[in-house]
């Protein structure tokens, strides 16, 4: 039994270690409430002594010092927290005692007691005056002075100064710049999701001009693949998918929304408008098609088909899902926690939650979808017109109206006309007008029929009343609330009697909003460095992790707003930094002092996302299709997966031709059974908003990369390319394959290892022609020898695709 417990303890231990990661060590001796104390209080105390009034015990809250419930209050002769005095502070006695009846947190809370280190921090804090600070993320970001650093020659880029200051305070120093091949590969993957092609690579590798790097950055930012790659992160965040995600999991069509997101990134739409369009695009006075399509953000939630659930419950669930998405995507807050009760940790009340809810429950749409809509479109929707089509439709409409008017006038005259000749000519005129009108109508219908449609947000004329729903129950309304933003944040400006969703959108992108900029910056940073400055990218609230570099986050947030929310400029600023350009080589010392590289004394190294791995294989083997936009595609997947889950007899039918070689962001996403090539490598199911993906390393991933049939076909295609030149020697061919896949040149040792592998594979295939035949099926190769050669090269390339350095961003 003892052994069993030990085993279990060690797994818990590992699990916890993994979860909590390392604590961020303080860089200065001075105690900071936000950095050192609030996390302890929040974790251990706030559940019972925090913002949630309903569950508050002993009428005591430790999230604030003042007020009759606050930590400084005196009650029955006891003071919870007496600044400067441990002796008089009840809190201190309660966290250090051994008495199970006295200790806080109490055993029944199932929270571990404070560690010695935590106790030491609390002690120091009380002794130094027990001062409270406002929570950092709810205060507007401030630009602080650029720090003074020791190594002044390293960089003058403010990002680097902030990062270096932190390193200095921890006794660390930056790494060398990464070599040029690593750098261009890194940059190319981070900005476009694809590796550099060989000509870009070779050019850059020998271009020693100082401006070469910046030119490369600009070139990559202007590629169409930049928008595709950036869009992919956004699609995770807003849980974009091709099916409804509930019950019969019917097809739905949000293609226009995806196309818009890609274009918005490529055209560098300001992040303020990017947010505005999505939250309230439908409320512009004359909304453009883009604005309407973007408002489809409000429709991306899961939705059930009609017939089994209770519509009023479905309605409530939809709105909850929508508000949750707004919380995660734009606020970096877990607002939905307050749907049943006041938030346990953040100062968000249940009333705040339903006041926010009130902006999103006034949709003019059915709460459940029809069954089996062929086009996947449920009202309200708009047709997506090109600007030419838009112009034409406008022309047609006005012409039709004109004719209509004329016809009516003529009809009136005709009705009273006595002269039969005149009457006849009027009748003829009417017939003519009629046929002309029909012709125009036909053209207009023709355009409309072939147009892609997009589901959009639409406000009801009459504002639906909103109640606080007791315990978050859809059928238990309480107090009536009106639309408003959370009280603990700065107030919203109303433009009318009742606040509109547009007012809310404008509040989000007001420069005074402390969350919007930081939350976005943090995700963009995460895209480039693997981990955000706040690791918990989905939660910047009280229970989220505190930033590793708070001044840097603030600096970037202010800069972002000042730049007009210019995303490309921000990306450029970050990748131009020396911090970004460091080598990711690890020494034992660097690993021990900072295993997760939160202090950035080296470049980050981490496994790439599923989409990047697949796209890279297609790209480097010359298979990738460049077609952008449009409907989702179905690359082959193992048989039987849809069959094993469907209730409407769906079978997966793979596409063929170019479609199956398109970038992964266009892959059809069935929520009930997403493509395994993606989920095995940590892509989320897309039934909830995800701001950061996990990165694991599992045997199923190894099996996928070793055996997936399309990946093997790609390997074979690259093998064919390798074998094409007539007069290349073995070393040249190996170098070509190696460089194409890894962006690096093989050294002598790698040359030897790979040529040995090739030789023994070749002899295997020579001795088993049937095996070589099987691998070469579908390719025009003559002769057993050549087949064996192609087979051997295919497996060699397959090995290259399975190298750790290939799937890893370095």
């Amino acid at each position, binding site marked *: 039994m003892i052994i069993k417990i030990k085993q279990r303890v060690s797994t818990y*231990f590992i699990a916890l270690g993994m979860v*909590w990661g390392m604590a961020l060590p303080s860089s200065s001796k001075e105690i900071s409430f936000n950095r050192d104390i609030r996390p302890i209080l929040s974790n251990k105390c706030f559940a019972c002594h925090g913002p949630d009034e309903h569950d508050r015990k002993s009428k005591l809250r430790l999230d604030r010092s003042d007020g009759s419930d606050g930590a400084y209050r005196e009650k029955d002769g006891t003071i919870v927290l007496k600044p400067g005095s441990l002796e008089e502070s009840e809190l201190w006695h309660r966290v250090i005692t051994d008495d199970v009846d006295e200790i806080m947190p109490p055993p029944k809370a199932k929270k571990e007691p404070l560690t010695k280190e935590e106790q030491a921090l609390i002690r120091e804090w009380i002794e130094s005056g027990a001062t409270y600070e406002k929570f950092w993320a709810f205060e507007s970001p401030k630009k602080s002075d650029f720090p003074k650093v020791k190594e002044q020659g390293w960089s003058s880029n403010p990002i680097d100064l902030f990062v270096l200051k932190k390193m200095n305070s921890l006794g660390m120093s930056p790494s060398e710049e990464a070599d040029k091949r690593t750098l261009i590969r890194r940059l190319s993957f981070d900005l476009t999701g694809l590796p550099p092609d060989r000509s870009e690579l070779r050019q850059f590798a020998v271009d020693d001009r100082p401006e070469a790097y910046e030119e490369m950055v600009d070139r990559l930012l202007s590629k169409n693949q930049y928008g595709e790659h950036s869009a992919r992160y956004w699609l995770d965040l807003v849980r974009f998918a091709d099916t409804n995600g509930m019950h019969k999991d019917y097809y739905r069509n949000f293609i226009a929304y995806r196309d818009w997101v890609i274009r918005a990134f490529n055209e560098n739409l300001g992040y303020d408008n990017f947010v505005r369009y999505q939250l309230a695009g439908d409320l512009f006075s004359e909304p453009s098609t883009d604005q309407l399509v973007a408002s489809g953000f409000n429709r991306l939630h*899961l939705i059930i088909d009609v017939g*089994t659930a209770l519509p009023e419950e479905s309605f409530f669930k939809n709105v909850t899902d929508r508000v949750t998405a707004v919380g995660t995507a734009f606020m970096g807050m877990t607002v939905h926690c307050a749907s049943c009760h006041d938030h346990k940790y953040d100062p968000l009340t249940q009333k705040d939650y339903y006041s926010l809810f009130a902006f999103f429950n006034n949709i003019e749409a059915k709460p459940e979808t029809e069954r089996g809509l062929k086009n996947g479109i449920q009202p309200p929707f708009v047709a997506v017109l090109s600007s030419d089509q838009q112009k034409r439709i406008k022309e047609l409409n006005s012409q039709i109206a004109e004719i209509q008017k004329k016809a009516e006038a003529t009809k009136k005259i005709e009705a009273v006309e006595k002269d039969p000749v005149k009457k006849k000519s009027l009748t003829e005129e009417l017939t003519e007008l009629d046929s002309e009108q029909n012709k125009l109508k036909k053209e207009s219908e023709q355009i409309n029929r072939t147009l892609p449609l997009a589901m959009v947000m639409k406000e009801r004329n009459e504002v639906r009343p909103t109640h606080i729903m007791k315990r978050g129950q859809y059928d238990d309304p309480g107090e009536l609330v009106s639309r408003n933003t959370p009280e603990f944040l700065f107030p919203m400006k109303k433009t009318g009697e009742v606040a509109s969703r547009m007012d809310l959108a404008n509040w989000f992108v007001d420069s005074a909003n402390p969350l919007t900029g930081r939350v976005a910056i943090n995700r963009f940073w995460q895209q480039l460095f693997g981990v955000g400055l706040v690791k918990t990218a989905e939660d910047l609230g009280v229970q989220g992790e505190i930033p590793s570099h708070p001044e840097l986050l603030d600096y970037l947030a202010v800069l972002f707003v000042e730049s007009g929310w210019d995303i490309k400029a921000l990306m450029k600023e970050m990748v131009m930094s020396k911090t970004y350009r460091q080598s990711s080589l690890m020494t034992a010392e660097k690993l021990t002092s900072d295993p997760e590289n939160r202090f950035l004394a080296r470049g980050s190294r981490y496994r790439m996302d599923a989409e990047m791995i697949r796209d890279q294989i297609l790209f480097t083997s010359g298979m990738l299709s460049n077609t952008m936009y449009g409907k989702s595609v179905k690359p082959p997947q193992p048989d039987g997966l849809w069959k094993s889950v469907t209730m409407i007899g769906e079978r997966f039918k793979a596409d063929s031709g170019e479609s199956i070689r398109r970038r992964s962001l266009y892959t059809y996403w069935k929520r009930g059974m997403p493509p395994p090539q993606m989920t095995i490598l940590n892509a989320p199911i897309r039934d909830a908003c995800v701001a950061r993906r996990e990165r694991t390393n599992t045997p199923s991933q190894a099996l996928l990369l*070793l055996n*997936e049939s399309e990946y093997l076909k790609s390997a074979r295609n690259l093998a064919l390319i390798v074998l094409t030149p007539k007069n290349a020697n073995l070393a040249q061919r190996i170098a070509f394959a190696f460089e194409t896949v890894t962006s690096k040149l093989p050294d002598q040792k790698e040359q030897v290892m790979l040529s040995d592998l090739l030789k023994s594979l070749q002899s295997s295939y020579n001795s088993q022609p049937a095996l070589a035949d099987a691998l070469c099926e579908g390719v025009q190769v003559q002769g057993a020898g050549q087949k064996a050669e192609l087979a051997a090269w295919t497996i060699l390339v397959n090995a290259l695709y399975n190298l750790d350095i290939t799937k*890893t961003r370095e």
Partner: protein
Amino acid sequence: MGIGASAFASLIAGKGAAAKESPFPKARAKRVIFLFMAGAPSQVDLFDRKPEMHKLFKSKLPKSVSKGQRVTTMTRGHEQLVAPTMFKFSQQGKSGVWMSELLPNLSTVADDICLVHSFNTNAINHDPGKTSFCTGSEIPGKPSMGAWLSYGLGTLNKDLPDFVVMPSAFWSGKVNVQALYARLWGSGFLPSKFQGTSFQTTGDPVLFLSNPKGVDSKVRRRMLDSLSALNQKHHSEIGDPEIQTTISQQEMAFRMQSSVPELTDISKEPKNVLEMYGPEVNKPGSYARNCLLARRMAERNVRFVQLFHRGWDHHTNLPVHMRGQCRDVDQPTAALLKDLKMRGLLEDTLVVFAGEFGRTVFGQGNIARDNYGRDHHPRCFSGWLAGGGIKGGMHYGETDDFSYNVVKDPVRVRDLHATMLHLLGVDHERLIFPFQGLDQRLTGVEKARIVSEIII
């Protein structure tokens, strides 16, 4: 920040103030086999005997019983007329528990199972019902119970996944077949290595397991040798320990290429064992085959095996479909229990059999003595547990005469989860994962009860 791992260790070692005794319950089970009857089987016809109903054939369900509770849109506004079961119940085993004639084989192991009649849930529709049953929450995005277990308990074997899911490829009740969702065995916010591995009935049992055409195991081995050497070389240059993980996962993948086929190969099973599971065992993808595989997995210490058998959603023609479904599951389920017992595995393997909710005592559609349908009913439903520290041969919980409301010892979904964890030696309030600012648990934030009355 947060709980330091050291704090946790000191607590376990009994040094912490609050840790006077071990924080862990005693583990009775090492592994779980969960037989999930997707679509919600009728407790009225299978487990919850209500002889009084026969006198009330087609009479109105009293308002005092239904209390105007919500029903689905399928029967909203319809008259609620009692449709008694047409199936006979009798007492079985030494313990004399009541079983339906639909389950003659399961009746032979009645003394091993604990029938719970007082399950209840909030969900009235399949999707939220199953999501709640499998992940503890109706709202998608939470980890499944198997994921929680592999996260909390770690692995017992090195060549197989910890959490395996086996949906039946076919079933008899071919009406209203309800969808399954990857989230039912997903990892939610837990690292995805804890997600269930769904065994496929066509092609590779584990996705991408087999070498592609034109690659044999010798070629693969040779390629892996070079791959591993190259990765080692890069590790010595780059210094990232993650490269070592990649190497070991590639080796594990290679081992799985033999361990999984060995697991799914039933050719060496003795004839009498195969016969015990019934003729369907010979068809890949059948519930019977999956039961046999579940036993083989239990032997190999797979932590959590979950079978999904669909086809229980009988809004009409219930007796016909019910007979078919019971034919699918009765013999194999009984065989699984016997087989586990024979091998001494039942005592530390917890077996659970349940659907996402129950069905109404009032009929849906035309009601005859021998033909009727039933709508969804979340207020009470029956299921059973066996092995792994569970008392056999007992009924637990009671419903009213109409099998409508629980009148004694209610067991909510989270209570079942808490009890399962307890049997595995895990305190459900301590199995946590911090996400979105909360210490998330399988059992959620509301209090859950360990049903200690059914534990040995």
